[in-house]
Every structure is written in C-alpha cells, then in structure tokens.
C-alpha cells in the first residue's frame, strides 16, 4: 500500500516533474531548489540546476538556505558571477526554465514580491524583487509556485512581468523573447495555466480532495476552468523517499515545520547548558579561537 503523503509533498513533486532532463533550470530559494534536487535524483540527472549567485550545474548536498549556499558549491560544474548569470546565460537566451515562488499574482501572471498595502493603506515591505523580474522576462519558460501567497485583482506593486495586460501585449512589446512567460502556476491544491490567446490564468488541475469552490474562494476574479481538467501527478514512492531523506521538513506546512525546528533547538540548547555546567565544574572549557 502506498504511503500517505501531504499536500506540501505533492507540490514539491509536481514542481519537480516540470524540470526535464537537460534543462537549464534557474531555481529560486526554498521550494524550487528542493524540487530541483528531487528532479535531478529521480528523472532528470542531467538537468543543470542554477542559482542566481552564479552557481551553475550544482547538486545540493542539503537544501540550501540562501542563493549562494555552500551546500551547493561542494562540487559544481561552472562558477560564473551574478552578472554573467543574468546576461550570458539568461538574456542571451540559454535559460530553459525559471522556477520561482509567488507572493502576489494577478490573472495575467504578473507578480509582486516587494510591497503589500496594509489594511491602513500603507505599503508594507515584504521581501523584494531579487532576480525574479529578469528571470521571468528572459527565461524561455517560467514555472511559478505558490504556497502562502495570494491572488489579487490588482498588484500592490508591479515587481515582475507576466503577460502584462494579457493578449499579445508581451510578445508585441519586442522586449521579451517570443513565447516566453509563465507557463504554469502550481499550489498545494491546484494547477493553473495561461490561455494561449488571452493569456488569462485558468484552472488546469485540482489536487485530490480539493473542491473547485474552495479554489474559487481564494481568487478575486471569475476564474475560468479548463474544459477537461488534467490529473495532478501522483508522487512515486521513490520520489517521496528521496524527498523525505533530502529535506525532511518539506512534508509539513511552514507552521508545523518551524514549530518542530524550534522545539529541537530549544531542547538541544537546554541539554548543552546542563553539559556545560558539568564541564565548567571540571574546568575543561577550551578556547578554540586561540
């Protein structure tokens, strides 16, 4: 019998499946890098994972915490700098896929990761643009993931261009590669694609046990739905086994995950405090920095 798996795992694996063997795939930090590791282990051994700091063709030892993480530099094929990553790889047309997380998204796949307007009307800083504007503009294709972000009618700040005002606007502007832009948005509960003509986002797949109404309730416009919904990928046992070994906390929601992490840290430090009390009594503390 197949092991139970969680919506968070489903999301990681659905994203991983988007990365094909041989792809040059730029990964945002967090879920995209974990999905990249799963892809490389399971079905895309020669996918070239890249981070914008210029670490190209890497295979993370553990999940990276930031985009120059040393867990990605113990063995990698190509050390380029950030400038080269954006110019000679991305702008020059060699980036097959960008995989990026979403803060706010509108119906044409435009993104905001910079500011959100708080209930009192003031813009509040969220994270920032990072590399997203240029990657979504110049990667041949962009895979979007959304875990705790939101769908909005109008972005509070226009950080990263999707299909702009929809229709042919992006292709006709002459400043984006033809046919580029977000191709899919994956959440723990649903997948969305973009209409080939209008470029409006539509629901393309529902995860098992999720109702259409539940999805629609999160979306402030009249969501269009594919005539025939696609099936969500079913994680294989091999994918789950690798994912749980590689990134144990990926199976939990962020809240549960952080709770577990903090509990462990507190416990460890209390134990060490007791140990230190002991060693202090016996005078064996050494100065490692000397």
């Amino acid at each position, binding site marked *: 019998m197949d092991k139970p798996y969680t919506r968070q795992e489903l999301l990681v694996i659905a994203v991983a499946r988007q990365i094909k063997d041989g792809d040059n795939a730029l990964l945002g930090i967090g879920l995209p890098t974990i999905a990249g590791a799963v892809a490389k282990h399971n079905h895309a051994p020669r996918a070239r994972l890249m981070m914008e700091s210029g670490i190209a063709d890497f295979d993370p030892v553990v999940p990276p915490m930031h985009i120059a993480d*040393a867990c990605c530099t113990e063995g990698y094929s190509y050390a380029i700098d950030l400038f080269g990553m954006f110019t000679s790889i991305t702008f020059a047309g060699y980036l097959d896929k960008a995989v990026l997380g979403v803060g706010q998204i509108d119906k044409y796949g435009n993104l905001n990761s910079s500011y959100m307007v708080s209930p009192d009307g003031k813009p509040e800083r969220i994270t920032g*643009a990072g590399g997203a504007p240029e990657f979504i503009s110049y990667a041949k294709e962009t895979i979007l993931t959304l875990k705790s972000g939101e769908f909005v009618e109008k972005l509070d700040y226009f950080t990263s261009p999707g299909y702009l005002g929809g229709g042919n606007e992006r292709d006709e502007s002459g400043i984006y590669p033809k046919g580029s832009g977000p191709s899919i948005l994956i959440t723990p509960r649903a997948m969305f694609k973009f209409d080939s003509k209008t470029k409006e986002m539509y629901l393309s797949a529902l995860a098992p046990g999720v109702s259409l109404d539940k999805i629609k309730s999160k979306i402030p416009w009249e969501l269009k739905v594919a005539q025939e919904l696609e099936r969500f990928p079913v994680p294989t046992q091999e994918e789950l086994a690798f994912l749980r070994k590689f990134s144990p906390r990926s199976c939990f929601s962020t809240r549960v995950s952080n709770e577990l992490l903090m509990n462990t840290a507190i416990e460890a*430090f209390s134990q060490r405090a007791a140990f230190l009390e002991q060693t202090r009594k016996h005078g064996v503390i050494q100065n490692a920095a000397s």
Partner: protein
Amino acid sequence: MTQSNSTKVMTTKEAVKRFVHDGDTIITGNYTEALPLSLIFEVIRQEKKEMTLYSQSGNMDAEFLVAGDCISRMVSTFVTKWGGRQGGSMVGRYLKAGKLEIEDYTNFTYNAMLAAGAAGYSYMQVLPAIMDTDVFKKRGFMGANKFGVTTCPFTGKTIPVVPAANPDVCLLHVQRADKYGNAQHWGGLGSTVHACLASKNIIVTCEEIVDHEVIRSAPHHTIVPDFRVSAVIEEPYGCHPMELPGYYGTDLNALSIFMFTNATETGLKDWMEEWVYALPDRSSYIQHYIETYGLPTLEQYRAKPYYSAPTNYGISTKSLWDEQGKSIEMNIDFAEMEKLIVEKGDLVNG
C-alpha cells in the same frame, strides 16, 4: 586610490577606525555566504552613524547594521525576513517606523551599478523588460538617477541603464589572503568582485593570512588584487554563523537562535548587547560561544575536506641557458657571449 605597499595587516578595530566614517556609503562585499560579520560587529561597536548601506540580499548584514542604528539609507534588492513571517525583519521594522529609507533594485540592476562602478563607467545597460516594472517606475531617494535610458546607435532601440555606484568602503570576508592584501575566495561569486572593485577602500578579513607564494600559485582565485586593499586582518570565524567553503558550514544552531531573537526588535537588541557590544572582538565572540554552547557545538560545523583537482601551471623552459651553461638560443656559453658582445656589439663603453 592605489593602496601603498606599507603594511596593511592590522586589527579589525583599527581597520574600521581608519577606513569607515560616519556618513559613508558602505557595501557588503560578500553576497549571502561568508557575510563579513566580524567587521559588521565592529562597525556597530564603533557606533558609526548615518551611513548608506549597499546590501544585495538585505540579509543578516543589514539586520545587524540597522539594529545598531548605523544606517539611514539602504540600497538593496531584498529584505530577508529573519524573524519569520510574523516577526518580519529589523529592516522592515525600521522602514515602518520611518527610521530607514530604502531604494529598490533587482539583483541584476543592483549588480549592474557596481559593474559600472568597477569598470570606471558612468552607467551600465540593464535588461529592457525592467522598464515595465515598478522597480523602474517608482523612485525612492535616488530619484531621477535611479534609472535612465540610452539609445542603441546600431538598432535604434531604447535601452534602460543604471548609474555607476562607487561605495566608500567594501567589507569582505574570504578564505585566504597574503599580507599585501591579495584576497582569494572560492564558492558562489554573486556580485562580490564588482562590489569590491567598485569601492574606494576595501577591508578584507580572512580565515588565514598565507604566504604570498600560495596566492601566486592559484591566481584564478584572487578576487581582489593587493593594490586595491586598504587593510587585511586574519580573523578566524570571521563570518560565523554564516558558512565559508572549506572552513565551516552554516551554524544551524546559531541561526535558530538568531531567528528566535529577531522575532522582535528588543529580542535582537538584547542579543546584540551580549554578543556584539559586550565583546571586544571576534576571538572573544568565539570564546563566548564556546563557553555558552560548548566546543563540540562549534566543532560539528567544521568543514570536511573536498579538494579541487590539481591544476598545473608549469612550463618547460625555465632559463635560456641549459644545464651545461650554454645559451639555448645561441649555443655558446656566458664567457663566449661576452666575447661576442665586444666583437659584434654596438658598444657604449670599453
């Protein structure tokens, strides 16, 4: 300015005192790995004020400097929410309180300002799509100078550009350097080289000051040449709790604590009382860490070896005289050559 050959080896305290001033524009040289935290703690201890911080990733570097009330303006692309979704970040708190202004760029446009500055250019082209975004359209304290446009004379297209950035001081931590200041780093490059070369002064901390011959044997790892460096300090654990390839991994325990304490403004400031202000230097910081959490906690993050394949820079011909003392070009020995000079040379004297 070109830095002189007089001794640059000094303490972190002295380097910060000499090269960082109130009102300066400072830049974190490293990207996210190897953040120059020993230098940053000293800047905070010396209570530098009203500085403008260039920090690409708005990471721990920005959190500490802002909490230390050193920074009034920041140029960045990102604010890392070290305090979590609820806690947010010190940068976020100061922005909200109106105690800090920020100018937003993207990773590339930020880097392009430094690339221009490093090259001596006044501007650098960026990628056209930026013109469709609020990053381009909305201006903070950079105003009209945040972005501009030029026209390509060959295609007639409008090209957005950024102005050059030339910070006063770059703070950098690396694996090794020599006493002259040649600094070597390997791992994620980010915009580190551009950040350094764009800056007027560069302060380098390193895990080890090595013999000049070590540097000369591996020139492709030199990211900053000696003549650009103002000060070099041997500072083991100079970027702890962040990681440095070949020396130590990210200290996950310390990061957990940092996340805890940074959930609130007072949390981080209390932590800084103990770990920044009350300790005079990095060696006492590490000593305090060991006393608090135990040597094994620190030791578990020591890097295991993963060495690069050797690179041979050797050549064949080490002298134009062979082992028998004959010129390999002229097949005569030194004395015969000196005779020939008198015979066939265009003599000045003799």
